[in-house]
């Protein structure tokens, strides 16, 4: 074999051993370029082959940040989507904090794009600037005469792959304020043709989720937890489990919350756990029935409210010619992400550990593991993996499942990796539910059909109180997540007063896709329809009449009009009925028209959902559409027939057969229209959910049944 090496070829291969350009932030927050992570935390890495890697600080549970943040980097540098890969960032709150989470690194509240839109573009633009500068020096031309197009540095009659300049660029100072591309120059941002970067691996079985971790010599751990939340282990007997092939041992967790069963593989762990018999100390356990919980909440809607949220006086209800009143009830709900909860902890050679996890808020488990395993923070590493859905469940203020894994690992000799696996039953029965809530809404109308007073009472279980998020989310005793979507409504409502009363927690509660808006959106929008009808007015016209001149009100009105137009509002085909709802959440505005056939007695069929969304700049319009489709399905799926109920504190449901997911035949076509916008991107993972259920309820109301007790089957609605 003869070697023919040009000088350039030689340089390239020599450089390939290490030349990497990284651009990101220095610890002081300034943009920086360099070649080593010690200098900065990178948002982008480029090697001398021109391969660009976006470092994603938000986790991917299907909502698309890996594609979205990569799009921003690719756009600013000037490479195609085929020339970019992504990696998840390590857990390091100092470097990768979510700007909205007060120093916590995490994904939630639909903040991924809003948080990172400027950061990632700036990083990409800084990378482009230093590469062009390096090319300009090499070619002896002005940097301003050069550009990067599809990964090629081009200008002044010359052209070379950007990888050629990576080594030199890494020696340059990053610009403090790089010039960003203007919207007119965008080729990828806002382009509906851009495809997801993870479609292929998720379609051929190679995508790796936390459930797919197989470390040499790992043990699978499953926990026997009490049937009533708050129960503690009194004693256990594992004599039967011992005869199961693959059983290793059983041990009570140090916090007495569960018995851990260690086995050689998942099936052995499942069987061994079934064979265990445990005596529980239930003295501090939840023992109520869900009917009691409901009664407590409904009672809390009467009398004086604990908090006057709007700090307003009551409107002149006594002058009303007509009063419309309705009480709504929203049950406990489980998240049931498709991938049951799991994570794996292994010991590292340096005495520390690595957590393999679809970590939604890595800072929490990072701190928890350090504390439980008595390790300094820098000895705990987190390998963030893909997550098979979350809907809020993987983001817990107390790192619940990672704590379980850490406790189970802590009481071993720590030589074998421990993989904690939840079954679907564990998930459905395991608490951390969307809290139950009640709303009682009373609206006084004048003889002319004008609103005189809107008295809105809310009662339910605070999500944030007693958690690490209390100081951020609770003010003057009011948990904002209990009232968001009502107290801050963009509607102009005369005599508007909102009262809140906290009730005692039933089991444990957690945010669930769209948090408070899951119930506030429903109560507001179902009520708007009832009031409009009482006033003899069209629901769309009535809503528009209460949307004034504020920026929010105008954006809300715009999506409402667009959805009404595209959904052919008021012109339902024969045998069909329509309902509409509009809601603002996470900075975005979504209106939906649901069209149904059938009726509540013989079965309702959801034929079509037409959506209009304003989420600011839609970075990946097709991902935006997918999130609206998913958000609609999630919202509608649960209000149809799902609830978690308790009997003596024991959860009655256990798996999909009795916590029935939305099925393909349940829902027809979903069409999404995006309002063009120059506003910064706002949330998209959640805002599709809140209007979907009330739009369905409003469509059903037109067939004669007003659904106020969820799920809808509880109010006698059958689904085809």
């Amino acid at each position, binding site marked *: 074999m003869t070697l023919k090496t040009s000088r350039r070829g030689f340089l390239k291969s020599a450089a390939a051993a290490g030349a990497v350009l990284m651009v990101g932030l220095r610890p002081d927050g300034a943009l920086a370029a360099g070649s080593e992570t010690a200098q900065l935390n990178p948002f982008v890495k480029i090697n001398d082959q021109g391969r660009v890697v976006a470092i994603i600080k938000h986790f991917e549970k299907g909502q698309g940040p890996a594609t979205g943040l990569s799009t921003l980097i690719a756009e600013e540098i000037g490479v195609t989507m085929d020339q970019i890969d992504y990696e998840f960032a390590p857990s390091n709150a100092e470097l990768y904090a979510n700007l909205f989470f007060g120093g916590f690194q995490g994904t939630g509240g639909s903040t991924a794009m809003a948080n990172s839109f400027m950061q990632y573009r700036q990083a990409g633009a800084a990378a482009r600037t230093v590469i062009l500068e390096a090319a300009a020096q090499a070619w002896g031309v002005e940097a301003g005469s050069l550009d990067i197009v599809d990964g090629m540095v081009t200008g002044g009659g010359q052209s070379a792959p950007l990888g050629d300049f990576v080594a030199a660029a890494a020696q340059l100072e990053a610009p403090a304020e790089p010039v960003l591309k203007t919207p007119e120059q965008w080729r990828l941002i806002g382009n509906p043709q851009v495809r997801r970067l993870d479609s292929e691996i*998720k*379609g*051929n079985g190679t995508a790796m989720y936390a459930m797919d971790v197989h470390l040499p010599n790992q043990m699978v751990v499953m926990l026997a937890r009490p049937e009533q939340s708050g129960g503690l282990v009194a004693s256990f007997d594992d004599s039967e489990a011992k005869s199961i092939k693959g059983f290793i041992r059983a041990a009570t967790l140090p916090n007495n919350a569960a018995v851990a069963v260690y086995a050689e593989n998942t099936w052995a762990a499942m069987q061994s756990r079934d064979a265990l018999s445990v005596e529980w100390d239930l003295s501090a356990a939840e023992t109520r029935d869900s009917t009691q919980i409901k009664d407590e909440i409904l009672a809390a809607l009467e009398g004086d409210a604990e908090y006057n949220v709007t700090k307003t006086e009551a409107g002149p209800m006594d002058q009303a010619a007509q009063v419309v009143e309705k009480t709504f009830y929203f049950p406990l709900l489980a998240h049931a992400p498709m991938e049951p909860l799991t994570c794996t902890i292994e010991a590292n050679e340096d005495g520390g550990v690595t957590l393999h996890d679809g970590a939604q808020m890595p800072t929490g488990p990072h701190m928890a593991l350090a504390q439980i395993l008595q390790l300094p923070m820098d000895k705990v590493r987190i390998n963030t993996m893909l997550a098979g859905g979350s809907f809020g469940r993987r983001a817990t203020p107390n790192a619940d499942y990672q704590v379980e894994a850490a406790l189970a690992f802590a009481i071993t000799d720590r030589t074998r990796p421990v993989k904690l696996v939840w079954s*679907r039953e564990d998930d459905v029965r395991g608490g951390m539910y969307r809290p139950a809530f009640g709303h009682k809404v009373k609206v006084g109308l004048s003889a002319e059909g004008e609103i005189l007073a809107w008295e809105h009472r809310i009662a339910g279980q605070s999500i944030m109180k007693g958690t690490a998020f209390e100081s951020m989310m609770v003010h003057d005793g009011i948990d904002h997540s209990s009232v968001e979507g009502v107290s801050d409504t963009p509607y102009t409502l005369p005599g508007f007063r909102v009262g809140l009363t906290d009730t005692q927690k039933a089991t444990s509660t957690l945010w669930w896709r769209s948090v408070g808006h899951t119930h506030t959106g429903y109560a507001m929008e179902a009520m708007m329809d009832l009031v409009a009808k009482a006033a003899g007015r069209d629901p769309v016209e009535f809503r528009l009449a209460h949307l004034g001149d504020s920026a929010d009100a105008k954006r809300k009105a715009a999506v409402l009009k667009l959805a009404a137009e595209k959904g052919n509002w008021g012109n339902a085909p024969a045998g069909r009925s329509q309902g509409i709802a509009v809601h603002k959440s996470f900075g975005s505005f979504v209106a939906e028209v649901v069209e149904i056939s059938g009726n509540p007695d013989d079965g309702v069929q959801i034929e079509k959902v037409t959506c209009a969304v304003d989420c600011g700049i839609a970075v990946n319009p097709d*991902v935006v559409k997918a999130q609206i489709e998913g958000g609609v399905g999630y919202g509608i799926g649960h209000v149809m027939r799902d609830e978690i109920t308790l009997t003596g504190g024991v959860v009655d449901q256990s798996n999909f057969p009795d916590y029935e997911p939305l099925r393909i035949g349940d829902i027809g076509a979903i069409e999404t229209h995006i309002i063009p916008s120059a506003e910064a991107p706002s949330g998209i993972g959640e805002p599709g959910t809140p209007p979907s259920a009330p739009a369905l309820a409003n469509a059903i109301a037109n067939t004669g049944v007003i659904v106020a007790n969820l799920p809808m089957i509880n109010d006698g609605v059958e689904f085809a």
Partner: protein
Amino acid sequence: MTINLKLNGVEHSVDAEPGTPLLWVIRDELKLTGTKFGCGVASCGACTVHVDGEPARSCQTFIEDVEGAEITTIETIGDTPEGAAIQQAWKELDVVQCGYCQSGQIMSAVGLLQENPKPSVEEINDYMNGNACRCATYQRIRAGIQRASEILEA
């Protein structure tokens, strides 16, 4: 007991207790993790594989019942014309979100197209009813199957 089976064209002999679900043999013993665990009770479809060419829920298929069977999983379904068409359509339409259900969706969709190359919307809804997607990618699944059907026809 020892069971002989052919997984994705490769002969294996596995030692497992009777009653062990095929799912856990595939995932934990044979270390092919594309086949997913979602419910364990044949109610979500995430674990769907083909046993002798027919879609089956591997979480409720017991090892003693697959002696000598040929099993195909998501890892090699792309070698069939229907599998390749479905995978191409899935990419064109970006069907996936979290992706966790999608191995099962694809295995079922391939089963459908092998039996009915041009299914109607109702036929798709009927056949795919047991495959849950918590991300609710259903309308893209429908569109993806129809697109794959076009690809196969061309």
